[in-house]
């Protein structure tokens, strides 16, 4: 068999590379080692756990959809608009990405809470400590993943195809539907996967803005945190459940979406 010769990978790089891999893999192994495998099914199937799982998957799915419906157009505007100040907007969009989630949750609370800027204008509508609050918190933290990835893909794709489509007589909406969207579809896919994963793992903003009410706002991460105080085996079991969900997401997304991120 002939094999291509690889050139110039310094051996020294292997050491930190292995350490980095260990940092990612070993904690999961530790979690597996701590788990009481026999008791696992019972813990995962417990009433609190199942409710949390269901709430997590449902809210994460809704937030991901919101990320697409709101964040997709935002990405297009950021990438294509020539309006002044768009550069500043681009920085603002990154805010949830760099802000500690707890701070984000507090900010949401003071916007939409009963005495908040917007919340006080909506008498009779209570947002904090509801499932809606969970969804808003998740969308808040997850949307930048989709917007940033999609905007980058739109810039890379450039406007030349769109210009050609216009010379062929396609109106702006047709160009968007038949050229722009198909060109960035892989980036949309990877953005959705990343947003879903981020929404599923969301903790800080959720607990500050939505609290931890069983069946209403207590998602899996919140349940894990709660159990870690009282029922370690239960916490480990649910953690493993989250690991499985994460692996599933990667498996579904790979290789197209995640690697298409570039």
């Amino acid at each position: 068999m002939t094999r291509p010769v690889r050139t110039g990978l310094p051996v020294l790089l292997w050491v930190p590379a292995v350490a980095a891999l260990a940092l990612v893999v070993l904690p999961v192994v530790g979690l597996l080692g701590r788990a009481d495998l026999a008791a696992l099914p019972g813990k995962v199937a417990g009433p609190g756990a199942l409710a949390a799982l269901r709430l997590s998957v449902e809210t994460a799915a809704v937030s991901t959809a919101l990320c697409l419906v709101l964040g997709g157009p935002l990405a297009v505007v950021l990438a294509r608009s020539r309006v002044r100040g768009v550069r500043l907007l681009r920085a603002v969009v990154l805010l949830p990405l760099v802000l500690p989630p707890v701070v984000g949750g507090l900010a949401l609370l003071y916007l939409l809470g009963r005495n908040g800027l917007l919340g006080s204008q909506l008498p009779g509508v209570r947002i904090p400590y509801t499932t809606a609050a969970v969804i808003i918190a998740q969308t808040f933290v997850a949307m930048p993943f989709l917007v940033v990835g999609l905007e980058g893909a739109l810039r890379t794709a450039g406007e030349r195809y769109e210009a050609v489509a216009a010379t062929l007589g396609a109106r702006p909406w047709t160009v968007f539907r038949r050229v722009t969207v198909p060109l960035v579809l892989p980036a949309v896919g990877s953005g959705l996967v990343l947003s879903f994963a981020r929404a599923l793992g969301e903790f800080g903003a959720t607990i500050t803005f939505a609290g931890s009410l069983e069946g209403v706002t207590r998602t899996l991460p919140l349940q894990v945190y709660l159990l870690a105080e009282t029922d370690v085996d239960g916490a480990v079991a649910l953690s493993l459940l989250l690991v499985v969900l994460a692996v599933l997401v990667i498996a579904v997304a790979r290789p197209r979406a995640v690697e298409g991120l570039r």
Partner: protein
Amino acid sequence: MSGLRVEVEASRGRFHLGVSLRVGPGEVVAVLGPNGSGKSTLLAVVSGLLRPDSGVVEVGGRAVTDLPPDRRRVGLLAQDALLFPHLTAEANVAFGPRSRGVGKRAAHAAARDWLAQVGAAEFADRRPSALSGGQAQRVALARALAAAPDVLLLDEPFAALDVDATPALRGVVRRVLGRQTALLVTHDPLDALALADRVVVLGSGAIVEQGPTREVLSRPRTAFTARIAGLNLIPGTAVPGGLRTADGALVAAATPGPVDEPAVAVFRPADVSVHPGPVDGSQRNTASAQVSALEPHGDTIRVRLTGPGWAAGLAADLTPAAVADLALEPGSRVHIRVKAVAVAVHGSAGGSAWVASRAWCGRT
């Protein structure tokens, strides 16, 4: 059929373009000029990608100056094919008709027709990534024409192709342009020669010279045009092995053209050798001529010739030493020779081949 009228002033940074230009219905006009002469700015203004500072762009008598590209009916074939990568070749060609509201089935039927016309029928189901540069450009040509533009802009359509692929595609473009009103931007005089009825020479944002293609290219009136063109052209009909002139002489060429079609033999003035006495009769491409003028041309001297046969109107570039040796002056009788290796025969615009190809495509 619609013509094009462009009378605009446009600025891009410090560059200024001021052009007044007309393309008659069904006419192909080539805009010739070096890089930075304003060719792309002109195209951007006509296609609607750049708004001029002042002036008017008219397509078929409609003022389109303030219309977006999608409402102008101005098509564009650029240097890169820019086929939509997610669509098959056929779907790419069907894009224009579909965007104009033609039904899916009819649009795809038209697309197959156009693909056949550009010799790309076999690629209909391929994705652009599976096409070579020349194949992709054929599909892009079909796509541009299928959208039925009133005016087609061709922006250096062969510049990104392999040298080998260029002549064939040039032939296809010549055949399908037919009665299409078109503006061809190029820096290659051969493109103009093969495709255009008229040439406009652009320099530093202004029109330097314009006129019928063959006239401008063979007898440039400005030094500027001479630099970018200044080719020797002999009109006639392409035959195997060369070109037959109107008075029956054969000009042998190493690169033959489309047989039996109107064509020109092309060679550079530097490829013409000048001799005081008759050249060995067994040599091809020899003729007697008379010197009509001598002009300095860079490091060489351009000798203008007149003569009874195909030598009329040719130019030869000689070193000053050679001119002195031969004691050339206006009126000197000389014999000239052109090596067949240096001669290429190109089909020229204004041929009749398109009539047949147009007839069966049924376009009105």
